[in-house]
């Protein structure tokens, strides 16, 4: 099912062009995404996979690191979450986006915790899809008020438990020692406004920030959520005796 890669795309265009890999079981959707990517001057088409298995095989043999990964969660032979995890582990520069029909919080949050940096709507217009990808590479991350609300609720419960900062398993991960505080005050402020329905532009105006700064806050937050979910898993595993205590 692998499509041939569009190799010429890399050296045309003055700005940097991002290579896109699509993992999607619906062939019409694949074609739609391919068309959207091909039409954009900032993107080039790396290929697509119709099953989890194909996607993992593609990544195992990849010669070109994908800059962007579009993943549908509901695959015939497994979950797109596995593809996201593998991609993030294998290619640190790769930024996965989840293809979602509804942008519903359950799936989106699960994807973000697996390492995705955002999501795109399946029913978006073709030019919107390319634009979302480019904006994401420029530092933006879409977030819905429902997801913001959910993240805030989670943050509140974590604060209540007060376990995050003190959790020793952070050390076991080595590179995740920066995780202690999930939300900075500014991030919290931005999230609260998003949960109340304000757009990035409105928030930027209200808070005297640039839109880009607002977007960066959200993207950073996504990264923290992924890291936090990892440390949480390690903490749980240590607690359950699956891992030996680092100390």
């Amino acid at each position: 099912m692998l499509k041939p890669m569009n190799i010429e795309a890399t050296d045309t265009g003055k700005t940097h062009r991002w290579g896109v890999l699509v993992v999607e079981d619906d062939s019409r959707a694949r074609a739609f995404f391919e068309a959207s990517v091909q039409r954009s001057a900032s993107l080039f088409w790396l290929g697509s996979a119709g099953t989890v298995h194909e996607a993992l095989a593609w990544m195992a043999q990849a010669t070109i690191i994908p800059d962007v990964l579009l993943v549908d969660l509901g695959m015939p032979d497994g979950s797109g979450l596995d593809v996201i995890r593998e991609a993030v582990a294998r290619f640190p520069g790769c930024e996965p986006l989840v293809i979602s029909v509804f942008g519903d919080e359950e799936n989106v949050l699960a994807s973000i915790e697996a390492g995705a940096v955002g999501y795109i709507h399946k029913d978006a217009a073709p030019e919107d899809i390319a634009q979302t990808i480019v904006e994401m590479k420029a530092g933006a991350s879409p977030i819905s008020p429902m997801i913001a609300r959910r993240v805030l609720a989670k943050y509140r419960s974590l604060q209540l438990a007060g376990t995050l900062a003190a959790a020793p398993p952070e050390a076991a991960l080595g590179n995740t020692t920066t995780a202690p505080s999930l939300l900075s005050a500014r991030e919290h402020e931005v999230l609260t406004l998003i949960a109340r329905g304000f757009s990035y532009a409105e928030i930027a105006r209200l808070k005297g920030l640039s839109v880009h700064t607002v977007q960066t806050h959200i993207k950073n937050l996504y990264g923290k959520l992924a890291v936090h979910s990892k440390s949480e898993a390690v903490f749980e595993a240590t607690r359950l005796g699956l891992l030996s205590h680092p100390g």
Partner: protein
Amino acid sequence: MFGRAGRALAALWLAATLLLAAQPAAAAAAEGTIELRRGTVWTTVDGATHKAPVELSYHWDRQHGGRPGYATFELPFTLDAEPEVPWGIFVPRAGSVLEVWLNDALLQVYGDLASGNGPDYAKAPLYVPVPGHLLKPGENRLQVRIRADSARRGGLSRVTIGPATPVRTDLFESAYAWRFTGSVLLTAFSLIVGSIALALWLTQVDAAATGWRRRDSLYFWAALAEFCWAIRVADGVIAEPPLPWGAWGVLMATCYAGWATSAMMFCYHLAGWHRRPRMRWLRWPMAGVVPGTVVATALALHREEPYWLTGWLALEIGFVALFVGAFAVATIRRPNVGRLLVAAAALVTLGFGTRDWLVIRLSDAYGETTWVRYSSVFFGIALLLIVLRRFHAASVQARGSVAALAERVAQRERELASTFAALEQVARDQARTHERERILRDMHDGVGSHISSAIRQLQSGQASPEELLRTLCDSLDQLKLAIDSIHLPPGDVGALLAALRYRLEPRLAAAGIQFEWAVDEVPDVKRLDAQAMRQLQFLLFEAISNVLQHAQARTLRIEAEAPAGAVQLRVIDDGQGFDAQQVPRALAERAAAIGARLALESRPGRTVVQLGFA
């Protein structure tokens, strides 16, 4: 636990029996002593004095028919030589008051010979030490002068004189122990048993459930019997009673009768006769024993004619004998340990009582003591045993009912828990059913209706692709809103508006409509449940959809505020407007369903759809 108490009581009984059997052995004469039996007596009764030889013991009441008077006993004895060790005189019984003289020297005074009906020194044995120089070889003369009150067992027993060592240590001290110390111990025992019974009577209140009376009268009669007996026995220790002999004598006889009556009442309850109407009459003759005794004793003492009391006691013993017989028969018919013990004690006591009556009231024997005082110990032990058994049974029953109660409570708890679980299950099922109904209605009203209108549009062939696209987009938007509504906290209108904006803004932007967001932070509207939240979503979707389709507006503004806590939502557009009198039916119905006040105003350039929550 009770078995141990029972064994302890049995051991006590055995010990009492052995002590009783051992008593006569203490009366054996000692070596080197002289027992004085014969002499001369001068008696003065009602002013007349007689002289006569005397053979001790001398029982005053028997000699003079209850008349009070004086007597001087002269008891000669001969010594071979002047004694080298100290001597003493042992008087087992003498009274009521007396003086002891030896060779015309006054040795000891017990009470005042000049006044009668006061102290009574006949109750305890006496010991008088003899100064060495008073005894001389040859003829010696011991003189005992008494004043005897009526019916007080006055007189003089045989007197023993001899070296202090056997007389004092063997004779006097053992007699004193039996008469005086015995009385103290018996009194203490009776007081203890009585107090236990009284405490039980006072504290064991209940037990409506067991069918008993509020207090168990068995305990009361046990306590009364023991207290009467304690006073009666204590008299043996009190040489100088607080009342004159007449009143004191009546009181003591009354206590004796009270003891007998209470003991019989105890048996009466123990046999269960109080529950049998045919036996109830027994209470009257039993109650009669006490006043009868008071009258008979008062007569005997006042008139100084002891046979009144002797006769009455005979009657009383007869009645008690009948009662004990009946009780014994009842016990044999329906035996249990308690009844058998009490029946045995009652028979023994009856036997001893009869013996005492014969010996003390009729015979000339003097210096004898009553036996009933000892047999009453059996009675006390049996009584204590019964009382303890009764208490034990009651407490076992109480423990049983506490356990039963706890079991019932636990049973109720289990029932409640299972009922609760069943109710919870029903509630869960109901919630699921409601949820299913809601989703079905949702699909019918939202996606279903949009898809069916898309199909109709296709079938009619008249719809433009733009119209068809809008219908399908509406359908997908409805689906997204339905998914959002699943997670919307009930009442959180702010979250609902935010999600609505997020879903619909791309459509507005695509339609070239400027969007304005003027949503304050508003409090939750408590009465909006999940269903009502969904209705509100539909309502707002409808209003915005109308603007999209018909208004040809350039700007759409959403406002939310809560002046004075009442939430108000407004959808405002600058389109062409419509006839505000013609309220779209879908809007009106949904607003009514969630209890929101719907207000429309419309003119070209400004249309406001307002929802108010009071």
